[in-house]
C-alpha cells in the first residue's frame, strides 16, 4: 500500500473521487479506490498475508473437522477441565481486552474529554470486534452452538451467572454495533443513521457502562461456582467479580495502545493527521488511566489475599507463580507507565501496555486453566485446540484490518460540500435553539 501511495494512488476517504469528481461506487470503496489488479498486487506483496495464508490452510480444515467429528476430535475431551483454551483464551482473555469500547465511550461522551476523540473510534471498534470474536470462540466451544439463543428464547435459568453473561454480552454487542455504525454510516453515506445514533449516544454509552460492569464482573463470578477448584490465590469469594472488572480497565486501555501502535507501524497511510498527531498524547493519557487502574487492582488483589488470610500460600510454588504474575503483569507496567508519563517517553508507555495485555491475559489463563484444578493435575491443551485458537485469532486480525482499511476509524471522512455547509450552520447556531437536528451534532465539530 505504501508503494502505491508513493506512485500517486490515494485511498478512499470521501464520497467523491477527486480525480474525476464522480462519487465512488461501493465496489471502488471496497477496493479502497484501487483497481482490482492493484489491490491484489498489494495484498500479495504483503508477507504478513502469506503467514495468514499458512495459518488458514492448516486451521480452517481443523475447524471444519471439529464440527464434523465433535469437540473430542480437537480437544482432550477432559471432564475435569470442561473449559479449555477456547473459553480460557477466547472468552476470558478477549472480553477484558475489549473493555476499551465502554472506557473510551465514557471518557469522551460522559466525561466530555473530547481530547481523546481521535482514538475513540478505534477503541469502540476494538471493543466490538473483541466481543464478536469472543462469541465466535464460544460457538466453537459450545457442544451445541446452534442452541446459543436458547437462554434468550427457549429455556431460562435466570439465577445463573452465565444467564447474565449471555444476556449482557448479547445486549452489549448490539450497543457496540450501534456505536461503531456511525463510522459505517459515514462510509456508505447515510447521514440519517449517523444522526440517529448521535442522538442516542449518551443512552448507548451509559448502558454500555452498566452492561460492561456487570458482565466483566460476571465472568469472574463464574469462578465462584468452583471455590474448591481454583487456587485460593486466584479465587476470592467476595471480590472475584471486582478483580475481574477492575483488571479489565487496564486491559482494555492497554489493548487500544497496543492496537494503535501496530496500526501506526503497519498502516500509517490510513491514519490522518488528526490521529497520528494526537496519538502520542492520547497514548500517555491512556497510560495514565491504566496505571491508576493497575494500582487499584494490585491493592484489591492483596486485599483479597488478606481477607481470606492466604498469606501462607505465597510461600509455596503457587505463591511464587502468583507473585510473578503480579510483579511482571502489574507492578512492572506501573513503573514503566510512571516513568513514561513523567518523562513523556511514549515508547515506554507502549512497552508497558504490551506487558499489561500479557499480564492480564496470564491472569485469566491462570484462573481458568493453570490454577484451575490445582489439586488434580495440569491440563496441557491439545495441539489442535491451540491451532484452532490461533486460526480464529487470525480471522479476527483479518476482519480488524479489513474494517480499519475502509471505515473512517483512523481517519476522518471528508464530508460532501453540502454536509459541510450543514455542519457550519449547526456550529454557528446556539446549541440550545437548534431543536431536533442538533442532537445529530452532539460530537462537537472542531
Amino acid at each position, binding site marked *: 500500500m505504501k508503494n502505491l501511495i508513493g506512485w500517486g494512488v490515494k485511498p478512499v476517504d470521501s464520497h467523491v473521487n477527486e480525480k474525476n469528481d464522480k462519487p465512488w461506487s461501493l465496489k471502488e470503496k471496497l477496493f479502497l479506490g484501487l483497481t482490482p489488479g492493484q489491490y491484489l498486487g498489494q495484498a500479495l506483496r504483503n508477507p504478513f498475508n502469506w503467514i495468514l495464508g499458512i495459518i488458514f490452510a492448516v486451521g480452517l480444515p481443523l475447524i471444519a473437522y471439529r464440527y464434523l467429528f465433535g469437540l473430542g476430535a480437537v480437544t482432550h475431551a477432559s471432564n475435569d477441565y470442561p473449559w479449555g483454551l477456547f473459553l480460557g483464551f477466547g472468552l476470558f482473555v478477549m472480553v477484558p481486552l475489549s473493555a476499551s469500547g465502554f472506557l473510551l465511550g465514557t471518557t469522551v461522551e460522559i466525561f466530555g474529554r473530547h481530547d481523546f476523540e481521535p482514538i475513540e473510534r478505534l477503541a469502540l471498534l476494538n471493543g466490538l470486534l473483541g466481543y464478536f470474536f469472543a462469541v465466535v470462540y464460544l460457538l466453537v466451544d459450545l457442544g451445541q452452538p446452534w442452541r446459543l439463543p436458547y437462554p434468550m428464547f427457549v429455556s431460562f435459568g435466570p439465577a445463573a451467572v452465565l444467564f447474565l453473561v449471555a444476556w449482557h454480552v448479547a445486549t452489549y454487542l448490539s450497543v457496540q454495533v450501534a456505536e461503531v455504525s456511525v463510522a459505517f454510516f459515514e462510509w456508505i453515506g447515510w447521514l440519517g443513521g449517523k444522526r440517529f445514533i448521535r442522538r442516542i449516544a449518551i443512552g448507548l454509552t451509559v448502558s454500555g457502562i452498566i452492561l460492561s460492569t456487570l458482565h466483566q464482573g460476571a465472568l469472574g463470578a463464574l469462578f465462584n461456582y468452583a471455590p474448591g477448584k481454583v487456587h485460593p490465590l486466584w479465587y476470592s469469594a467476595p471480590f472475584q467479580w471486582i478483580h475481574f472488572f477492575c483488571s479489565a480497565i487496564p486491559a482494555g486501555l492497554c489493548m487500544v495502545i497496543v492496537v494503535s501502535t501496530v496500526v501506526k507501524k503497519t498502516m500509517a497511510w490510513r491514519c490522518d493527521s488528526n490521529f497520528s498527531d494526537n496519538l502520542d498524547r492520547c497514548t500517555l493519557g491512556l497510560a495514565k488511566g491504566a496505571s491508576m487502574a493497575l494500582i487499584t487492582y494490585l491493592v484489591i488483589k492483596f486485599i483479597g489475599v488478606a481477607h481470606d488470610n492466604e498469606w501462607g500460600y505465597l510461600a509455596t510454588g503457587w505463591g511464587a507463580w502468583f507473585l510473578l504474575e503480579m510483579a511482571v503483569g502489574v507492578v512492572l507496567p506501573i513503573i514503566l507507565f510512571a516513568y513514561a508519563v513523567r518523562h513523556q517517553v511514549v515508547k515506554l508507555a507502549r512497552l508497558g501496555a504490551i506487558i499489561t495485555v500479557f499480564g492480564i491475559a496470564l491472569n485469566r489463563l491462570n484462573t481458568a486453566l493453570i490454577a484451575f484444578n490445582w489439586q*488434580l493435575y495440569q491440563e496441557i491443551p491439545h495441539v489442535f485446540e491451540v491451532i484452532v485458537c490461533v486460526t480464529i485469532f487470525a480471522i479476527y486480525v483479518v476482519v480488524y484490518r479489513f474494517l480499519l482499511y475502509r471505515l473512517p476509524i483512523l481517519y476522518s471522512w471528508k464530508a460532501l460540500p453540502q454536509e459541510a455547509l450543514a455542519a457550519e450552520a449547526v456550529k454557528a447556531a446556539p446549541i440550545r435553539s437548534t431543536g431536533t437536528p442538533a442532537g445529530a451534532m452532539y460530537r462537537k465539530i472542531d
Partner: protein
Amino acid sequence: MSGISRRRFLAASVAGCAATTLAGPRKVLASATFTGYPDGMGVLVDLTRCVGCRSCEAACNKEQKLPAPDRPFDDMSVFDETFHGGKQKRRPDENAYTVVNRYNPENAAPVYRKVQCNHCNEPACLSSCFVNAYTKTEEGAVVYNSKVCVGCRTCMVACPFHVPAYSYSSALDPVIKKCIFCYDTRLKKGLPPACVDICPQEALTFGKRKDLIKIGHQRIETHPGRYVDHLYGEKELGGTSWMYLAPVAFDQVGFDPNPGNEPIISHVKDFLSTVPMVLAIWPAMFTGFHLLAKKQKGDDDHEHDAEKQHGDEGGEQ
C-alpha cells in the same frame, strides 16, 4: 435544565430501565437456604461393607443402556488404573455413571469407594445452569433435560464432586452424562436404583434421607471402632442425598475433606445481589457525571478553550 440535557437524561434513563427490566428477578428465588425435600430419598454408602465386586457398575451399565466397557466388570485390574501422571483414579464419564475405586489407606485394609452423583440438596450444576436444564425432584434425584442443554459445561465446572461428564465424541448431539438416581425407570416408582438393588454386601442402603441420617449415626454409635465419627454428605455443601460412612479419614479415600457446609450457590450470592444495585444506580450516577462534566464547561463559546486546556493537562502531567 436545558432541553437537550433533559432529553439525554431521559434517553439514558430509558436505557437503564430497559436494562433493569431485562435483568428481572434474578436470584431472588434461591436466596433462602434449601435443605432438601422432606420426603426426599437417598442412599447411605457404607465403605466398610464394600468389597469392590463392581456389580453396581454392571447393573448401572445395564439399567442406563450404556455401551459395553473396554474391560469386563469382573476384571479387577481396573483398580490399578491411574491417569494423568498416576494421581487420578477412574471417574464417571459418558460410558459409566458410576465407578468403584480402591484406596490403600495407611495401616488399614484396602477401602473401596463408589463414585456417582451425590444428588445435592442445592446442586451446583442446577444453580449454574443458564437454561435450567437441571431439576431437583421431590424424590431427591437431580435430573437433566438434554433437550435444552447448550453444552456450555458450566455444570461440570461447578460440580464440587467432579461428576457430570460430557459426550465429547458426539458431533451432533453431545449431552451431559451423569447418574440420575435411575429416576425415570425406578425412583419415580418408589424403587431403589439398580446399583442398590444388586449390591450383595448391603453396602448401599436406600431410604428416606432423614431416616438414613439416623441410621448412619446409629451405626457409628454401635460400632465406634469401625467408623470415623462423620457422616459425609449430611452437611457438606448444603447436604447431599447420597451419604457416606468410612472406616478411615475421608481424605484417605479420595474425598475433599473440607468442602464446607455452604452450598455452592452461597459463593455466588454476593455477586448476584450486586447486580440489581448496579442496574439501578449506574444510570443515574453516570448521567449525573455527564451533567456535571458539561455544567463545568458551560455551553457557550468558552467550551472549546476549556476543552483545549483539559487536553493539555491530560497530555503533559
